[in-house]
């Protein structure tokens, strides 16, 4: 049984999804089943995580077909990390989802909604776990199609338009990815990532391979919302149902970043990517702009959900910046931020979900007085907000500290100064919200507004507390991120 864990990791969500879809008349049951599936998936992810934490690599042959002919799933410290992020977030978001989804989604569609959620979940897991390039494309499409459906179910009519926007951009991205993978296949005759890695050096000095690298890099950059390819993200996050925003913000872009890392480090190799093609010099300016511009835009937003969406684009910039230092420390900081930002941003969007549940929306004017009416929710928002800024003893600080060290190590002093400056921008946009919630009197005081129900509040508080826990005991995540970085730099999965 235990040797089949890699298959189970994807299979649970994938097989439960159609069952859930058939439970259209029993929305509660569909929720319960989805929750169970998510928890089981988390358990599997944790089991895998424990096994690879010391640096071992698990290789699993799908259906017993030997790689490189069959499809191989392989788990090392790097992707086990991402699997845990996906598992953790979906497991925590499900208890939160029950009431939130009942309010935001029409009852007749709830089963469909959860079914799509499971598919999106399975897609993301599949992308992360598989060692087959074509498989990555397929799972990208599974998760993307399911995500379009999830976003379109938002009860704001603009949700449909933003879903369409995402569909166009996402399809362009995955098509580019497919073209790149096709080129690789033409040149090497293989799709297995490890096999690709060993065959590429012979042909790497060709225009086709360089073009393949370009297509893949641009395609994935679209999916991970690298500035200026981020245009789909703010609308999608703003108009999607609350729980979808929580889930996607914490996982979708992270998975894409992981895939980028996998291609850059494992398939093409450090030499080819950073020395021959000088990728760092392409990534760094984009990362710097990607931090600065969306942060500035975020400062001027009046819808808090959109504000945080722009902040997400900026945070992707931080992760890309770490990669662009082309050093073990920088890579480690980026991997660290995958997790730290996932819990931070998920906690923030959950707090917004609580606010939406009670207030009906989260434009700044609606938030006036929320600090007094919903003290726990706003408390969670403040704490998670501090983590987003990167205040000491929060998860965000652990990342920032290492990112700054990486900048100093690589000799980029101005970048270090720039990073400190931009965390002030983060302080500015978080504080804007806090000030309104605590120190502005509501225009029409509504005494009926109470604290969010426990079902919403508890997961929010749990995740918020974890931003403190992983901030205080940062040495655990740091040590693990170091192993994961070593696994990526080390070569074949």
């Amino acid at each position: 049984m235990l040797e089949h864990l890699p298959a189970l990791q994807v299979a649970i969500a994938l097989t439960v999804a159609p069952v859930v879809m058939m439970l259209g008349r029993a929305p509660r049951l569909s929720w319960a089943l989805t929750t169970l599936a998510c928890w089981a998936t988390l358990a599997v992810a944790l089991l895998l995580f424990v096994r690879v934490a010391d640096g071992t690599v698990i290789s699993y042959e799908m259906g017993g077909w030997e790689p490189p002919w069959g499809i191989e799933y392989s788990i090392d410290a790097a992707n086990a990390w991402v699997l845990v992020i996906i598992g953790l977030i979906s497991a925590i978001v499900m208890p939160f989802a029950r009431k939130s989804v009942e309010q935001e989604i029409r009852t007749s569609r709830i089963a469909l909604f959860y079914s799509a959620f499971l598919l999106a979940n399975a897609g993301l897991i599949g992308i992360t776990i598989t060692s087959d390039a074509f498989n990555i494309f397929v799972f990208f499409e599974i998760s993307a199609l399911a995500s379009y459906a999830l976003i379109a179910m938002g009860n704001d009519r603009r949700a449909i338009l933003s879903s369409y926007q995402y569909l166009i951009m996402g399809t362009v991205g995955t098509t580019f990815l497919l073209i790149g993978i096709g080129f690789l296949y033409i040149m090497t005759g293989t799709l297995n990532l490890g096999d690709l890695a060993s065959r590429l050096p012979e042909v790497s000095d060709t225009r086709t391979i360089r073009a393949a690298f370009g297509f893949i890099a641009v395609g994935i950059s679209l999916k991970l919302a690298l500035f200026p390819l981020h245009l789909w993200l703010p609308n999608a996050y703003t108009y999607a149902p609350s729980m979808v925003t929580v889930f996607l913000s914490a996982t979708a872009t992270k998975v894409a970043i992981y895939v980028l890392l996998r291609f850059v480090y494992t398939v093409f190799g450090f030499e080819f990517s950073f020395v021959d093609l000088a990728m760092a010099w392409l990534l760094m300016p984009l990362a710097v702009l990607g931090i600065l511009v969306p942060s500035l835009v975020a400062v001027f937003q009046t819808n808090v959900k959109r504000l945080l969406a722009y902040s997400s684009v900026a945070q992707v910039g931080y992760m890309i910046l770490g990669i662009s230092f082309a050093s073990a420390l920088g890579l480690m900081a980026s991997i660290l931020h995958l997790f730290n930002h996932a819990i931070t941003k998920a906690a923030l969007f959950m707090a917004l979900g609580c606010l939406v549940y009670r207030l009906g929306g989260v434009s700044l004017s609606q938030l006036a007085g929320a600090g007094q009416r919903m003290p726990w929710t706003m408390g969670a928002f403040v704490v998670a907000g501090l983590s987003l800024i990167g205040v000491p003893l929060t998860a965000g600080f652990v990342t920032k500290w290492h990112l700054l060290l990486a900048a100093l190590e690589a000799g980029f002093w101005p970048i270090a100064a720039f990073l400190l400056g931009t965390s002030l921008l983060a302080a500015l946009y978080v504080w804007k919200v806090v000030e309104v919630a605590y120190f502005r009197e509501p225009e029409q005081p509504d005494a009926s507004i109470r604290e969010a129900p426990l079902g919403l509040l508890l997961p929010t508080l749990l995740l918020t507390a974890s931003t403190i826990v992983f901030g205080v005991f940062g040495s655990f995540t740091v040590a693990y991120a170091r192993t994961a970085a070593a696994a990526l730099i080390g070569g074949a999965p």
Partner: protein
Amino acid sequence: MITLPMLVALAGLVLIVASGRFAALRDGLTVATAAAMFAAVLQLLPRVRDGERPRLELFEFFPGLGITFEIEPLGMVFALLASGLWIITALYAIGYMRGAKEKHHTRFHAFFAVALFSATGIAFAGNMFTLFVFYEILTLSTYPLVAHKGSEEAKQGARTYLGLLLGTSVAFMLMAVLVTWWLAGTLDFTPGGIMAGRVDPAHGSILLVLFLYGIGKAALMPFHRWLPAAMVAPTPVSALLHAVAVVKAGVFTVLKVTVYLFGLDYLGELVTSTLMLYVAAFTMLAASLIAIRQDNLKARLAYSTVSQLSYIVIGAMLVNSVAALGGSMHIVMHAFGKITLFFCAGAIYVATKKTEISEMDGLARRMPFTYAAFFIGALCVIGIPPLGGVWSKWHLMMGAFEAGYGVIVVAFMASTLLNIGYLIPPVVRGCLLTPKDGGTNGIREAPLLCVLPLTLTALGCLALFFAAEPLAALLGGMLVVAPVP
């Protein structure tokens, strides 16, 4: 045992919040927490006086870097000062908040406890990282106190406050901390400093500037505006936090950094120590000149604080032990003087709702205790015997002589004259002039809970004149550099 004072503050926080609905109980608990905290700090005093350095490593954050506490004389004095004056301020705050009819008392007292918790954390920090963490908590926890009234003016002031303090600390101090860690490989506070032999003086010079401007709470110009902006807060906040805990945390950090990170010998090699000396001297005089022009009493006191803080920075930048000792003593002396002055300003506000000096003519006859205390506090800040302030200024002057900076000696003298120029007129107007309009009929002293604290701190100013010797002996311990084994 080291963390006991901080645990007391946290327990107090919980109790204050839990008893929020019962005003009398909550206020009683606030005072009790302050008293318990003072006792908890006091029990550590004998050990530190005997040369012991109690140390506790709470947990490790990254390898080699963690939250660590170590109590040395300067931190001991700062913690005693902050927690001791908190007892008096807690009493005063009860009288003031009721007298001035402020709202949200529970939030107010609760954040006060958090502020004192973090001030103690700063005092006991064993490395620069720990200090930085508590420095930021102090900034964040005092924000709600500054914005307390919730009016547009209060929010504006609080924005300036948070913006400048958070901005300088993140942009400059965090940078300096990080680079120090990167270059020196440690952030532990070590007698004699950690920089010598590890950090190139050229880099050290830049680091010094980053540190001194990064410690925004020391209010060096041009990053001093947050302090006047913070005056929108209720007066107990201005009194304890913006005359004692917060601003003294700033100059305390300056002293810690110069004595324990740079080391006085290494500091003397840096070109920028002279530069920063002149920046501090400029701040001292310029802030005094601005203070003279302020009609709002609290604003005048705020600029006076900006000026007095620079005395302490000068003490550190003169790079000799006499001046450093003078600077450390001034932390205590100025604290007692300035808190008395703020208490008086608050008492006048509670009794009369007046905030402008020009409206306060002839009040002394109605409020004799308040004005007597104001006079004593003013003399202490100016530095006239028989009040404590004279000793710290004496040491600072001696230090300037010893360092051979005649200009600084002259600057100190000029500043003393300016001090007289802005602190004595309010007393004179109150005592000698006749009220302009409407008279002072119906005005009485503020409630007992306001008048008693200010009398106590005024007496404290007197007592410090005689207690300077043991204080200097205790503080002298921080300048002892252990022989290198």
